[in-house]
Every structure is written in C-alpha cells, then in structure tokens.
C-alpha cells in the first residue's frame, strides 16, 4: 500500500501530501505520523497541503485528529499551503479546522515551529486559533 513520506528536519517532522488522498491513505498517515513522533521525540509537525485540490470532511477530520494526537505526544502541528478556494469551501462546508494551526506557506509554517522550539514548551499550544499564524485563509 502507498504511504505518504514523513521527513525529519531537526526537531520537526515534515509531511507533504502530494496525491489525491483516498480514505485508507489518510488513516495510514495518521498512524505513521504518531508513530514517528513517538520514535523521534519531534516537537513540531508541518503538513503541507498545497497540492490538495479539495479538503472534504474526512480529510479535515484527519488533520484535526493528527493535531490533537500530536499535541498529546508533545508536538504541535501546523498545516500550511491551503489553497484559497479550499479555504472558502471548507468554511461553507462548516469545517473551520479550529483545532489546527495554519500558516500561508511552508516558510511561515517553519518559522512558527522555530518559535515554538525556541519557547521550549509553547504556551501557544493552549490557543490554537489565536495568534498571527492563521493567515492561510485568504481569498
């Protein structure tokens, strides 16, 4: 079965979703990612969804779950690269991914993770919807 590659960069894990995800692949990513967090002690997870033409409720729920489980394992998640049309559609669908930090692109996402790592433990993780990082919903 296909797997989505997970790269380690310092204390962060990087995931770039480049395929139209079917449901089993999304479920596998959830498992693989949490295992890698536990194995590596990563403190931050960046998920790049810029290749995704849509995010439906299944994928949205997967992102929410990954963020919640990662947090319990001591890692904060930022989702980057959401296309403007996807953001518009998600809000209309009623799925605002309130439990997930977002940033416009990989660069800003990595900067955010860098700040979390500098802070040691992020107080920021208590307020995922607050702060200046939720700038991925343009359009």
């Amino acid at each position: 079965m296909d797997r989505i590659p997970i790269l380690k960069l310092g204390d962060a894990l990087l995931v770039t979703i480049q395929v139209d995800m079917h449901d089993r692949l999304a479920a596998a990513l959830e498992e693989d990612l949490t295992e890698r967090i536990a194995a590596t002690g990563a403190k931050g997870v960046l998920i790049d969804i810029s290749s995704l033409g849509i995010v439906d409720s299944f994928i949205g729920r997967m992102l929410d779950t990954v963020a919640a489980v990662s947090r319990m394992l001591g890692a904060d998640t930022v989702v980057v690269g959401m296309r403007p049309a996807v953001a518009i559609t998600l809000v209309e669908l009623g799925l605002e991914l309130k439990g997930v930090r977002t940033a416009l692109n990989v660069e800003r996402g990595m900067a955010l993770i860098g700040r979390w790592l500098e802070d040691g433990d992020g107080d920021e993780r208590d307020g995922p919807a607050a702060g200046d990082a939720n700038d991925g919903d343009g359009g």
Partner: protein
Amino acid sequence: MATGDDAARGTAVLAIGSSDDVVRVRQEVRSRAVAAGLGIVDQTKIVTAASELARNTLIHGGGGTVRVESVSQGVRRGVRLTFEDHGPGIPDINQALKDGFTTGGGLGLGLGGSKRLSNEFEIDSAPGRGTRVTIARWK
C-alpha cells in the same frame, strides 16, 4: 475551449463501492467542472460536495452509483450529479440535513454541507428504499 459537444460528452455512470471509487468520482467531477467552464472556487465546491455524497453512498448506502452529467440551459453550463443507493434510506431527512447529525461516526456535515455547496439540491429517500441525492452547480 471546445463548444457544442455537450451531447457528445453526455453522461457517465460510475460505481461507488470503495474509497478508491470516491477518488475516481472526484476526478471525473473535476474534469466535467473544468469542461463546463466553472471557476476554481465553483469547481472546488462541487468536487467537495461530490466527495461528501460519494462517501455517504459508500458508508450509509452500502455502495451505489453516481451519474455525472454535463448540462446546459441556454448559454449556461454546469454539472449535475445524481447519487443513488439501495441502502436503508433516511427516516428523517430534515434531521439528516442538520449539521452535526451523524449515524456513521463522521462529522455529520455531509448532507447539509453538500447542500450549501450546490446551486441545486434534491433528496429522495425512504426507509428500506434507499436514497437518491441530486445536486448541480452552474457557471
């Protein structure tokens, strides 16, 4: 852009029996939406709605079909989708349309969300008879 070939493009009927089929439905709907001249936001909305409804057909209906039609009304062009299953049906459609109502362990955004993402929405269902949902998105 090719024009005048609506009749030739006609109708496609796709089976929905696995999560891979849900991906295929998304791809077919995307290419129809592009061919109909829908903008990127409208494309994203109809493909997302199709993904939600295809998953409903799979999970709640026990599988079924979708008919994908390229439609035109005068100079207006669009895409119409008819999802059909012979599953248990929906006893209370109004309740099923409410956000947060779910029997399948999902987020319960599928039906109501798809309705919001479409220009036309029609549902016909009764216990024991199965469910038919028709949506359309126009340019």
